[in-house]
C-alpha cells in the first residue's frame, strides 16, 4: 500500500505553507536590500558632493573655472568607478565637469536636482544620462548658502553615478537571496516529507488495524510510540481488540460447549425456526430418525432445510411446524407442549424404533436485525423445540417385565392349584377309610410345595441379583474348599443317580478372586442342571482353567461344568437363558423338570461378576457350560 492521501495532504500543505513564507521573506529582503543600496548610494554621493563643496567653496567662480575643470577631470579619471562631477553656477551655467567640456554644456538650471539644491540645499534625481550612457543618479548640493538661510547659493556641486553599477550590485545580491530562498525551499520540502511521513504513519497503522478489526481480524495489534493523542487512540484500539477477542473466545467456548453437549446428549434435539426450517439438529436426533449422521458435517448440512424435506413421519413434522394462529403468549402453558410416542420402522428390517417425542414452543433470538426492528414491540414468533428420547429398549424391557410377571404367576399358580386340589380332595376323604389315597395326596402336596419353595427361592435369588443395591464384593476363595463344598452339597443326589464326579483343578489355581456367594449360586445351579439332565451312570466333569489377559480383557478363571446328559437342541440353546424357558420334555428326552430359572440365575450371577457364560451342547451327547470370571490384575488384590 502506497502513501495514503493523508500523507499527501500533510506534505503538500506543509510545502505550500513554507514556500509561501520563504517567498514572502525573500521578496521583502530583496526589496529592503534594493532600497538600502539606493539610500546608501544617495548618501555616498551626498557626502562626496559635500566634500567637493568644501574643497571648492573658496574658488567657486568663473576665474577658477579652468583650474576646477582640470581638477575635476583628473579626479574623474582617477576614479575606478565611473563618476561624474559637475559644478554648476547659480544661473545654471556649468563651471566645470569631470567628463565633458563645460563650454559645450547647456544650462543646467532646469535639472531637477539642481533646482532642488538651489531651493532646499540639496536634491537628487535618477534619469537617463547621455554622458554616462545609461541611467544615472544625480545628487546636487548647494554651495555657499548652507549656513546662512535666505542667502542665495553661489552654485551647485553635482555628483552623478551610473545606476547600472548599483543595479548590478543589487541584482547579484538579489540572486543570492533568491538562491538561498530556493535552497531553503528544498530543505523545507525534504523536512515536510519527513514530517508528513512521521505524522501519517501512526494514523495509517491505526487505520489498517481498525480496518482489520472491522473485518474480524483480531490478530494484529497497533504499535504507536509516544504519549500523544494518537498513541492513546492506538492503545484504546488495542484494548478494544483485546476485549473483543476475549469476548469472541468466550462466545466460541460457550458455543463449543453447547455443541459438544448437544453432540453427547443421548436425547435427540431438533429446533425449527418460525419459518419451519431446521435451525439445529444434534447427532442423536439424526441417528434416531435414520438421517445420515456420519461424518459430523452432514448434520450441519441439514441446517436451513425445510422440516418437510428431512424429517420423516408426518406426526413429527406437525410437532416441529409452527401452527398458524398460535401466539407465543401461551408458550409453556402445556397447551402448546405435546408429548407423543412415535414408532419408526427400522431401516434394516430390525425391530421398530420407539421414540418419545416432546415438542414445545421456543422463543428464539431473531437473527436478522431488520426483523427485530420491524417486529417492534410485538412478541417474536416462536420456533419449535423437539426432544426425542429413544424408548425402544425401555419398551422392550417393559415388555420383558410384563412377560415375566405373566410367566411367574403362571408358574406359581400351577403348583398352588395342585396343592389346593389335593387339599380339597383330602377334606372330602375319610382318611381312616382310604389311608393309601391320603398318603399319595399328602405326597402330592409335599412335592408341589417343595416346587413352590424352589420357585420362590429362585425368584428371590433372581430379583436379588437384579436389584442388588450394592455391588457384590470380591474376596479370595480357595478353589479346593469351593469344590469339596459343592460335592458335599450334591453328594446325595450324585450317589442316588450313580454319577461320576470328577474335579480337575491345576495346582497353581488353588485360589481365585470372586464373590463367594455368586460363584456358589452359579456352580450350584450348573451342577443341579447337570445332575438333573444326566442319566444314571453318566459323568460330571468340573475343570478349572485360566485364560491369560489380552488387550481388551483381563486374566480370567474359567470353570467348565460338563455332563454326559441329554443335551439341548441347537435352536433352543439361545433361549435356555430366558426366564422360565424350559426345553420341552418331548424334545429333551428327559423327565426331569426344574423351575426354568436356573440358567437365568447363572447368567445374572456371572454378569454380576462381570464374567461371561458360554454354552455348548449336543443333543444326546451332553452339555458343557463354561463360565469365565475375570480376575483383578496381580498385585492389586
Amino acid at each position: 500500500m502506497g502513501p495514503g492521501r493523508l500523507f499527501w495532504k500533510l506534505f503538500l500543505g506543509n510545502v505550500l505553507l513554507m514556500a509561501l513564507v520563504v517567498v514572502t521573506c525573500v521578496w521583502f529582503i530583496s526589496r529592503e536590500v534594493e532600497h538600502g543600496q539606493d539610500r546608501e548610494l544617495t548618501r555616498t554621493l551626498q557626502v562626496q558632493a559635500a566634500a567637493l563643496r568644501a574643497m571648492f567653496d573658496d574658488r567657486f567662480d568663473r576665474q577658477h573655472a579652468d583650474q576646477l575643470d582640470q581638477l575635476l577631470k583628473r579626479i574623474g579619471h582617477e576614479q575606478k568607478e565611473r563618476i561624474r562631477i559637475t559644478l554648476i553656477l547659480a544661473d545654471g551655467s556649468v563651471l566645470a565637469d569631470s567628463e565633458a567640456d563645460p563650454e559645450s554644456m547647456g544650462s543646467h538650471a532646469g535639472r531637477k536636482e539642481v533646482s532642488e539644491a538651489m531651493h532646499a540645499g540639496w536634491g537628487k534625481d535618477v534619469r537617463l544620462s547621455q554622458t554616462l550612457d545609461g541611467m544615472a543618479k544625480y545628487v546636487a548640493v548647494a554651495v555657499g548658502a548652507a549656513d546662512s538661510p535666505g542667502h542665495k547659493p553661489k552654485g551647485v556641486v553635482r555628483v552623478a553615478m551610473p545606476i547600472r553599477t548599483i543595479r548590478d550590485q543589487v541584482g547579484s545580491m538579489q540572486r543570492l537571496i533568491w538562491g538561498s530562498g530556493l535552497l531553503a525551499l528544498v530543505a523545507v520540502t525534504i523536512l515536510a516529507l519527513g514530517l508528513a511521513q512521521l505524522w501519517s504513519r501512526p494514523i495509517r497503522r491505526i487505520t489498517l488495524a481498525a480496518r482489520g478489526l472491522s473485518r474480524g481480524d483480531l490478530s494484529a495489534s497497533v504499535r504507536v510510540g509516544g504519549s500523544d493523542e494518537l498513541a492513546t487512540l492506538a492503545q484504546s484500539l488495542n484494548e478494544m481488540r483485546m476485549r473483543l477477542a476475549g469476548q469472541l473466545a468466550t462466545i466460541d467456548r460457550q458455543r463449543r460447549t453447547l455443541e459438544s453437549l448437544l453432540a453427547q446428549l443421548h436425547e435427540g434435539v431438533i429446533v425449527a425456526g418460525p419459518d419451519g426450517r431446521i435451525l439445529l439438529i444434534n447427532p442423536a436426533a439424526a441417528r434416531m430418525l435414520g438421517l445420515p449422521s456420519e461424518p459430523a458435517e452432514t448434520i450441519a448440512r441439514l441446517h436451513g432445510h425445510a422440516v418437510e424435506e428431512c424429517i420423516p413421519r408426518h406426526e413429527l413434522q406437525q410437532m416441529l411446524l409452527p401452527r398458524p394462529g398460535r401466539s407465543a403468549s401461551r408458550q409453556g402453558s402445556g397447551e402448546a407442549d405435546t408429548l407423543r410416542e412415535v414408532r419408526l420402522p427400522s431401516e434394516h428390517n430390525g425391530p421398530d424404533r420407539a421414540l418419545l417425542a416432546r415438542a414445545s414452543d421456543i422463543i428464539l433470538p431473531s437473527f436478522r436485525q431488520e426483523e427485530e426492528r420491524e417486529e417492534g414491540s410485538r412478541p417474536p414468533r416462536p420456533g419449535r423445540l423437539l426432544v426425542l428420547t429413544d424408548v425402544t429398549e425401555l419398551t422392550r424391557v417393559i415388555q420383558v417385565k410384563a412377560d415375566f410377571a405373566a410367566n411367574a404367576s403362571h408358574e406359581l399358580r400351577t403348583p398352588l392349584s395342585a396343592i389346593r386340589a389335593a387339599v380339597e380332595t383330602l377334606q372330602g376323604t375319610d382318611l381312616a377309610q382310604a389311608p393309601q389315597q391320603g398318603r399319595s395326596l399328602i405326597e402330592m402336596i409335599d412335592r408341589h410345595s417343595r416346587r413352590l419353595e424352589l420357585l420362590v427361592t429362585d425368584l428371590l435369588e433372581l430379583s436379588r441379583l437384579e436389584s442388588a443395591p450394592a455391588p457384590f464384593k470380591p474376596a479370595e476363595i480357595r478353589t479346593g474348599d469351593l469344590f469339596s463344598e459343592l460335592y458335599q452339597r450334591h453328594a446325595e443326589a450324585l450317589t442316588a443317580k450313580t454319577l461320576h464326579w470328577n474335579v480337575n483343578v491345576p495346582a497353581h489355581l488353588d485360589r481365585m478372586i470372586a464373590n463367594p456367594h455368586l460363584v456358589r449360586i452359579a456352580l450350584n445351579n450348573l451342577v443341579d442342571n447337570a445332575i438333573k439332565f444326566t442319566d444314571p451312570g453318566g459323568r460330571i466333569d468340573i475343570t478349572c482353567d485360566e485364560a491369560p489377559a489380552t488387550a481388551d480383557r483381563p486374566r480370567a478363571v474359567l470353570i467348565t461344568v460338563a455332563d454326559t446328559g441329554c443335551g439341548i437342541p441347537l435352536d433352543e440353546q439361545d433361549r435356555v437363558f430366558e426366564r422360565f424357558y424350559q426345553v420341552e420334555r418331548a424334545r429333551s428326552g428327559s423327565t426331569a423338570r426344574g423351575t426354568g430359572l436356573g440358567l437365568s440365575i447363572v447368567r445374572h450371577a456371572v454378569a454380576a461378576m462381570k464374567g461371561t457364560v458360554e454354552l455348548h451342547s449336543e443333543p444326546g451327547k451332553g452339555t458343557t457350560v463354561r463360565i469365565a470370571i475375570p480376575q483383578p490384575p496381580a498385585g492389586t488384590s
Partner: protein
Amino acid sequence: MSAHFVELLDLLRRRSLRMASAVEDMLDEACTAALRADHALARRVIARDVEIDAEEVAIEAEVIRLITLFQPMASDMRLLTTVLKVNNDLERVADCAVNIAQRARHIDSPGMAGSAEDVKEIAQGAMRMLRGALKAYAAEDCEAARTLLEEDAVIDAFYGELIRKLAAAASRSPELMTTHLDVFSIAKNLERIADHATNIAEDVIFLHTGEIVRHHLPAAEADPPSQKR
C-alpha cells in the same frame, strides 16, 4: 422470477411434502392395522382420507393458481407439473391405504390364514419403495430415484408368487375364502402402491433432467423440453 413467486413455490413444495409424509404414515398404519387385525386403527386410517382428499384438491388449485398468475418457465414449470403429478399419485396411494384398512376391518385373526408373513414382506417392500420415492422427492435426488425404478420389478415378482400361493391355499382351505380374498385385495393394493411409488420416482427424474423415463421411450421420442440443467 419475483422473490414472491419463489417463496410461494417453496411453500407449495413443502405443503406437498407434508402431504407425502401424511400419506406415508397412513400407509404404515394401514399395514399395521391389517397385520395386527387392529380394527380401531383401521377406522382411524379411513377417517384420515378426508383430510388427504381435501389437501389434494387444495394443492392442485394452488398449482393452477401459480401457473396462471406467474406463467413460469423451465425448471419452475417442471417443479409445478411434478408437484401436480406427485399430488395425484399420493392421493391414489392414500386411497389404496384406505382399501387396505377396509379389508383389515374384516380380518379377525392376526394370522391371515397363513399368509401373514408374505403380506408383511410385500407391505415392507411397498413401504420401502414409497419411502424411498418420497425421500428422493424431498431431496430432489435423481440417483436415488433411478435405483428405485429397478425395485418395482422385485415387488411385481413377489406379488405374482403371492397370488400363486394364495390360489393354492384357497383350494386347500376353501372355508377361509373370505380371508384369502381380503389378503388378495391387500396384496393387490400394495402392489399398486409400489407402482405409484415408481411413478413418483419417474417424476423426480423428470423434475431434475426433463427426461421422461416412463414407458422406456427413447429420449428423442419423448421430446424433452430441455436437456439436463
